[in-house]
């Protein structure tokens, strides 16, 4: 079971992209891709991050490893007694901390460089982290390939010689090559067909246990999240709307959005009877999210509320807070949770 020791604390992260318009390319507005996310991540856990397309999952992941720049907020990384402020690292700290968080991507076709063999792609990061001789680098990469159930010799092959599942495993090996503590898996199995998906998910589990890793597992596939996550965070329009232990969230979803998402997965076990809740409309434009609770134009619950309650939903944005007061926190951002 994951510990209660914090490894990462994301505080009020906002990542906005400028929208440029006109001849002079002036900034007309901002896409609020991530708009105030607070999240604590514990050492050794797998945190699932779910939500519809465009809700900002990838952007949150990229903000954490600074592939995109957050406009405000703080990300704290804990190592032993020390705390590092990831968005304000000194150059020495940066060199030491940069590789602690790595990422595995979705697209097995663009995730490997077609011009290089596996060894060619992976050796530069190893050099950067001080593996001096070629023989050592070959040994490390060979070991990594074996760790992801591939053959050592395959390090001298080019990406086009691999299948989708193999490429994805090479992507995992690459993320592992600098011994990270946290691995962000951004739709890491979404592009694979289900039999390969199973192998890769199992592999990820094994690796996690063998190396004591922490995962942030981004996906829109709720059954995958249920399979792999200890806790699940549900995102909507750049904000987290529900965060709970995976089991609690799947058994008793409290946010109307989570309920709608869950009702849409085909149900295998018949003892969980539920109506399929159809979400109307598309995700609103993150440039100008709706007032108050951003979910209100699509919220099934909202329709059944009284007029003053509706005004409340439309006027005030709900805060993420504990709804149940049970031993394990179950955070919901809704004025009228279930």
């Amino acid at each position: 079971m994951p510990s209660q020791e914090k490894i990462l604390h994301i505080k009020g992260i906002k990542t906005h992209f400028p929208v440029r318009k006109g001849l002079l390319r002036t900034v007309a507005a901002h896409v609020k891709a991530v708009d105030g996310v607070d999240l604590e991540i514990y050492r050794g856990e797998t945190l699932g991050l779910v939500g519809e397309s465009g809700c900002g999952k990838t952007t949150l992941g990229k903000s954490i490893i600074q592939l995109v720049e957050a406009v405000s907020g703080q990300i704290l990384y804990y190592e032993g007694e020390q705390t590092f402020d990831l968005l304000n690292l000194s150059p020495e700290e940066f060199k030491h901390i940069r590789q602690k968080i790595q990422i595995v991507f979705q697209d097995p076709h663009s995730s490997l460089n077609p011009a290089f063999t596996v060894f060619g792609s992976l050796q530069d990061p190893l050099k950067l982290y001080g593996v001096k001789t070629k023989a050592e680098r070959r040994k490390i990469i060979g070991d990594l390939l074996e760790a992801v159930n591939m053959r050592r010799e395959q390090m001298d092959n080019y990406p086009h010689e691999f299948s989708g599942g193999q490429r994805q495993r090479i992507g995992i090996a690459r993320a592992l090559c600098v011994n990270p503590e946290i691995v962000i898996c951004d739709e890491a199995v979404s592009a694979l067909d289900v039999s390969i998906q199973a192998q890769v998910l199992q592999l990820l589990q094994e690796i996690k246990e063998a190396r004591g890793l922490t995962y942030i597992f981004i996906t829109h596939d709720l059954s995958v999240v249920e399979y792999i996550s200890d806790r699940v965070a549900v995102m909507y329009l750049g904000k987290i709307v529900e965060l709970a232990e995976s089991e609690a969230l799947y058994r008793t979803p409290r946010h109307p959005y989570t309920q709608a998402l869950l009702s849409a997965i085909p149900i295998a076990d018949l003892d969980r009877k539920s109506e399929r809740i159809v979400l109307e409309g598309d995700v609103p434009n993150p440039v100008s999210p709706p007032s108050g609770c951003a979910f209100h134009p699509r919220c099934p619950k909202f329709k059944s509320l009284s007029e003053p309650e509706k005004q409340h939903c439309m006027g005030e944005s709900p805060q993420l807070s504990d709804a149940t007061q049970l031993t394990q926190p179950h955070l919901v951002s809704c004025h009228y949770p279930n």
Partner: protein
Amino acid sequence: MTRRPTRLDKKFDILRERTERGTLKAASSNRALNKLASNKLAVLGLAFVTIMILASVFAPLVTQYDPQKVDLRMMLKPPSADHILGTDKIGRDVFARIIYGGRISILVGLGSALGAALIGVSIGAYTAYKGGWLDSTFLRISEVVMSFPQIILVLMLVTILGQSLMNLIIIFTLTGWGSLYRLTRAQMLSLREEEYVQALRAFGLNTFTICFKHILPNALGPIMVNITLSTAMFILQEAGLSFLGLGVPLNIPTWGNILNVAQDLRILQNYWWVWLPSAMTISLFVLAINFVGDGLRDTTDPTMQG
């Protein structure tokens, strides 16, 4: 350690028994070469270009005449067994001049194309990868250079720098880097979004390594095509300038300089062998390079890949 079974577990149990299928068969790595070989025009072009380059490099083995040697007894003689393409108005062997001229003409074309590539590709790759104001600044500069009529720019520079072989290459490079810059920039803008680039950035590798070592090789196909086509273009420009007497100094034989005599109406009308072979060499050579370039383009264009 127990984990609560979910609905995927059942599916996985079944699948676990199946072992992974055999790996995909390795795609043919010399597919590009095969493709080029099946393009007849490209092969023909490549053969012609190769022959011309070899002939001019080994010119002394191909002809026993000195292209500079004046022979006043043999002025304007038509083609014969001794002089297969005849002689020019001061008795120099035309065939020898074309073969030796190829050295300079090809040097100017290829040298300028490579120079333009060096500038255009390095600026284009770096600024596009970096983006922001650096990219927009260079984009504006290239627009200014490219919107200026190139021939006027060349003429101005020739007057300023003076006429010499080296200057000509420098001038062509300075005026011609725009198209390679544009091409590299466009390639880079799309390649830098690839996930492997993001992964490299997550390791904290420096910009130069990512940009030039890891990304650039993926853009080389179209760049090579553009370099071949630029070579043809610069050979034509050299010929044009030399015809006007503004290219390589007239005493050095180049295809353009040989053509220069055709300014004289008497020669143009009565002594075709003095200028026509050179004109045809230029046309054929440029055409051949274009065939090679088009063939290369087909092999590197992903939409044409079968």
